């Protein structure tokens, strides 16, 4: 069931909603950070954070509290909090709304997070194009600093905290956490081999925690409500997927937008109840559930959990549109939850043209460090282009499968899989349409991505 909430979005529509006075008046501004820093030890904060079951909002869904616990016992070197606001995954448009409309939630979350992981300095890495976001964050930081919430003695405590906005320079790959760290250090944004993980060797060679911007922004809410209570707001609390989060809708829906909801709405609720249905009242054709790297779904797909002992068994065989969206439920449906921003494709969309668009994206954005990804991204792009141009063969369709298969698991960073999985998804779910191009039954002259 849809459970709209307004913990982050309560100030979204207000005049000057991004300023400190509004945040204090309408969103319990900094009361939680004050309480946490003046009454709890860092160990207690981490223990409490685990109970919130906040699965990372950046796409991979790693539990935030557990990530924080990797920073304890407290290291001897300086530690850093790194906030990932590179928001570049195609179809993702949620972090930007928080930065523009509720930047203080981020600052407050960072104060709690920095204290918990033992960091005196935090960097918020924002992609360069988001100029308004950067300005709003800088304003919020200045306001918080003027009040003494940031600086040498936040809320009178002895744990100094400084927060800085750092700008990217145009590279999707810098959203990958180790690439981001290299970029922050002033290097080319090439991902690093893991291990070591950022908690061991992160920014400037020191232990670091990298969290998505929305992950940090929801922290004050979790601590205000009590982390366990917060987790229980979710329909998937028993799957350790807790709380509330932002859901985005884009593509062929009547009302695109961003909504805050308790975790666990279904795709049907999002698309039809919140999105007003498919554009032009067309049939739903396909869904990309959480950013372009999450494999495409057809409305006929189902969740698979045949084992009666599985916590997901209750949904076994159920239509993917009617399964609560969560990290584990989407995995069992042959895709991934990703960033919770849903791209809707209406009947009439050409899936080969859609696939080509995405393969062009990955080809452009591969950092080129590993051969399978560098070469594979080019091959995928060129092969789909060839098929789309009407010059393809049936072997080319199989080649797509093979190229993507060779990338999977053979690269330094998850970009490779993030390109190969959707490629495999398109080939599997739209083989008929690819074949129609090869046979000459479909021609690119008639292909459309728009449907009005």
């Amino acid at each position, binding site marked *: 069931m849809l459970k709209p909430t307004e913990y982050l979005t309560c100030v979204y529509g207000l005049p000057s909603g991004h300023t400190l006075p509004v945040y204090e008046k309408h969103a319990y501004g900094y009361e939680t950070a004050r309480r946490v820093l003046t009454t709890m030890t860092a160990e207690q904060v981490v223990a409490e954070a685990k109970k919130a079951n906040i699965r990372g909002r950046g796409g991979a869904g790693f539990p935030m509290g557990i990530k924080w616990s990797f920073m304890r016992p407290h290291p001897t070197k300086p530690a850093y909090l790194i906030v990932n606001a590179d928001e570049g995954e*195609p179809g*993702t448009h949620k972090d930007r709304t928080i930065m523009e409309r509720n930047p203080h939630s981020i600052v407050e979350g960072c104060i709690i997070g920095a204290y918990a992981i033992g960091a005196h300095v935090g960097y918020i890495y924002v992609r360069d194009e988001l100029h308004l976001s950067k300005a709003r964050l800088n304003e919020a930081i200045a306001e918080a600093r003027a009040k003494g919430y940031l600086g040498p003695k936040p809320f009178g405590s002895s744990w100094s905290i400084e927060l800085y906005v750092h700008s990217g320079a*145009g590279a999707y790959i810098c959203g990958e956490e180790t690439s981001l760290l290299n970029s922050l250090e002033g290097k*080319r944004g090439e991902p690093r081999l893991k291990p070591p993980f950022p908690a061991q060797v992160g920014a400037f060679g020191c232990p670091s925690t990298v969290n998505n911007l929305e992950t940090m922004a929801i922290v004050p809410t979790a601590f205000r409500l009590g982390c366990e209570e917060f987790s229980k707001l979710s329909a998937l609390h028993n799957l350790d997927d807790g709380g509330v989060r932002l859901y985005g809708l884009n593509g062929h829906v009547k009302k695109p937008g961003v909504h805050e909801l308790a975790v666990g709405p279904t795709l049907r609720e999002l698309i039809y109840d919140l999105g007003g249905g498919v554009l032009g009242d067309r049939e739903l054709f396909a869904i990309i559930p959480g950013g372009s790297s999450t494999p495409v779904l057809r409305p006929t797909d189902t969740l698979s959990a045949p084992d009666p002992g599985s916590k997901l068994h209750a949904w076994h065989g159920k239509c993917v549109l009617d399964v609560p969206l969560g990290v584990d439920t989407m995995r069992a449906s042959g895709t991934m939850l990703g960033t919770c921003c849903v791209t809707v494709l209406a009947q009439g969309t050409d899936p080969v043209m*859609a696939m080509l*668009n995405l393969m062009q994206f990955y080809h452009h954005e591969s950092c080129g460090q590993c051969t399978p990804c560098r070469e594979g991204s080019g091959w995928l792009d060129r092969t789909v282009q060839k098929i789309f141009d009407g010059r393809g063969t049936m072997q080319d369709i199989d080649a797509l499968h093979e190229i993507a298969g060779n990338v999977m698991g053979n690269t330094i960073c998850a970009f490779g899989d993030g390109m190969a999985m959707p490629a495999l998804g398109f080939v599997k779910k739209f083989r008929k349409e690819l074949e129609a191009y090869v046979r000459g039954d479909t021609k690119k002259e008639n292909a459309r991505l728009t449907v009005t």
Partner: protein
Amino acid sequence: MPFALTPERERTFQELLTRYPTKMALTIPLLQLCQEQHGWISEEVMLFVAERLDLSAAHVKGVVTFYTLFNQHPVGKHQVWVCKTLPCALRGAYDVLHQCEKKLGIKAGETTSNGQITLRTAECLASCATAPMMQVDKEYFEDLTPERVDEILRRLQES
């Protein structure tokens, strides 16, 4: 003449230096300050950055060539980016791009002959729910219609 920052940007640079444990971390921020001033990253700019940060010129060049937003050649006074990634394309981004190309008389990647406007395509700019969209210099224009695109370009051409 060797490149130098304006006094105001020099102050910004000095303030930024206090934020990081290494000078190298200033590579991108300093390059951005320079590009803001100079419009693009010339050899002189790279040498300036290398010298100010005690880095090799090769390091600076490696960074410049990695990121798409560093201009390695002079560009127009105004930058127009049309987002062409799937969510925008589902809402008409290709039409927006064609309209811009037609109206400006150039292809994506080119600059108008008077040096005023460079047209480029962009990958997803986190604005997919208000697609189609384009960025002009530092500003986003969202929920575009053909009329608005015309209007935006007309104002830009007149500016």
